[in-house]
């Protein structure tokens, strides 16, 4: 074996180990939570003491946690629908702006990403009280939509930018109206971005903490808030079971992207 091939072998090995380390870094927390949720013992501990699903059952026996889960799901679903439609409309509108205006428009649309979540939440709190929606489910819903919107918008706008503007002209010259062009050309081609944006919006909304804490309605709780309350009194694997379900939900989202549009085209 020559020195050169040894060198390239070594660098390949170094590259591979770096990737392994990276994956470990990203996956260990996930594996730990999932493992902890499957324990048969009484405590969150690694390695788990035997295997069981009892903590998942325990989760569903807790009325407050289940109610919070349903609330989170409902809010995330509405956020997804609303952001999906509004972000699509906004991204379509941005296409007819001049290049300079489009840059400013993009910054405006993604502003909630640039401002600390806490500041947005405080601003929203004042605003919602002023319009009489303080401490209501609708107010909380509005907060989630505001914070989920940028992810959805960025994803859809990126997909629209990939579409050759000549396709619009081609479709029009063949007799399609504006709506028909949207329906037969723009929408199918933007679908990967739309689905991905929707999944991002859903997961973002499902995970939001700060905003929910400030805007939560009286007597209502989202899952992250409920889990945090729960953990301050009780350190049982029920929390890990809830976290595991969140992880599964995220994987389900990725599966949806894969199924509908293919991961290669989405990312």
């Amino acid at each position, binding site marked *: 074996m020559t020195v050169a091939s040894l060198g390239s072998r070594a660098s390949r090995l170094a590259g591979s180990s770096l990737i392994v380390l990276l994956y470990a870094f990203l996956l260990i927390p996930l594996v730990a939570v999932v493992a902890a949720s499957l324990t048969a013992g009484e405590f969150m501990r690694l390695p788990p003491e035997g295997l069981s699903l009892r903590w998942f059952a325990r989760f569903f026996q807790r009325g407050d946690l289940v109610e919070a889960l349903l609330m989170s799901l409902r809010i995330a679903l509405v956020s997804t629908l609303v952001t999906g439609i509004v972000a699509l409309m906004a991204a379509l509108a941005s296409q007819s702006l001049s290049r300079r205006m489009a840059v400013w428009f993009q910054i405006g649309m993604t502003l909630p990403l640039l401002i600390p979540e806490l500041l947005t939440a405080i601003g929203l709190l004042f605003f919602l009280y002023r319009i009489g929606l303080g401490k209501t489910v609708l107010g909380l819903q509005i907060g989630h939509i505001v914070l989920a919107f940028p992810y959805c918008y960025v994803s859809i706008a990126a997909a629209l930018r990939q579409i050759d503007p000549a396709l619009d002209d081609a479709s029009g010259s*063949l007799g399609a109206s504006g709506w028909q062009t949207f329906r037969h050309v723009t929408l199918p081609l933007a679908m990967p971005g739309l689905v991905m944006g929707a999944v991002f919006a859903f997961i973002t909304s499902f995970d939001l903490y700060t905003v929910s804490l400030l805007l939560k309605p009286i007597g209502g709780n989202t899952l992250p808030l409920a889990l945090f309350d729960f953990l301050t009194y009780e350190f049982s694997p029920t929390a890990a079971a809830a976290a595991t379900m969140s992880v599964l939900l995220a994987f389900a989202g990725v599966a949806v992207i894969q199924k509908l549009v293919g991961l290669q085209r989405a990312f």
Partner: protein
Amino acid sequence: MSSLEISALCKRYGPAVALDGVSLTAGQGELVSLLGPSGCGKTTALRCIAGFIDPDDGDIRANGVSILATPSSKRDFGVVFQNYALFPHLNVAENVGYGLLFRKGSKAERERRVREVLEQVQLVGLEHRLPRELSGGQQQRVALARALVIQPRLLLLDEPLANLDARLRDDVRWLIRDVQQASRTTAFYVTHDQAEAMAISDKIAVMKNGKVAQFASPREIYQRPAERYVASFTGEANFLAAEVERALGGGLFRVRAGGATLDVRGAGPFAGSAVLLARPESLAIVTDGTGQLEGRVVKSVFLGAVQHCEVVLRDGASVRLGTPPDRPLPADGTVSVRLDVDRTWLMPDAVP
């Protein structure tokens, strides 16, 4: 099928003038080429005709009726785009049938029409392929079929061969000409390739900086160009500086050019100086000393069927010409050059 008349079309992009008073006509069933270098406004003109952009000034009439107020979706013009602009998510049959979705007719009729057009462009068997699974030439045929399927009143083609390799170019060019002739569709054809324009067109508009420098048949453009720019853009050309002595009447002029006095044809009137166009095929080296011009061969290239020479004339002008390859050139390089005056053309350096 229709005739088209464009008059004084203007289009500005900020300070840049893309079209500066373009006037053209295409008779029923004619193929008109817009020929010119990149950036001279060919695509802009085509996009105005298609209705993708509105001109700032001027008018476009189809069969005598202005179409400026008609949106592109109602014009019934088939457009073939430079980059094809095929719908990437639709297969060949769906791409070709797209325009029929918005017209009357049953599904069976649509399918029959798609098959008919696919046969015309020789794409049968590829119905279920996606555009990205096709070669460049096949994509071009799909683009052509998609434009033809709606039986357009006008066919607009923007550099349809620009992205094909040389061998395919000839095939597709003949295909375009054949289907255009077969369907008797009026067509506008944008290109920067003069040979392509010559071969395919009924009329050519040579464009220069947003203006039409000359609008005429390929023969006229080649043999009787309006100015030096047109001549240099339409094939090999030698230009001799000419002093016009006087007009002889009947389109003839007596000039001094290349160190000789010649009676040549041209489109006067001329004031003093002009340019004499002598295509390489109008020049020949003769051994019997009867040529009107004298010069010295400074360069010669053997190309098999022909030998290309560069000759410097007595007044210092240099010309290129072809000679039979088997004839040896004189050792000292001094030659007599005969100019076939019937194949020369006197023209102004530039039309103001």
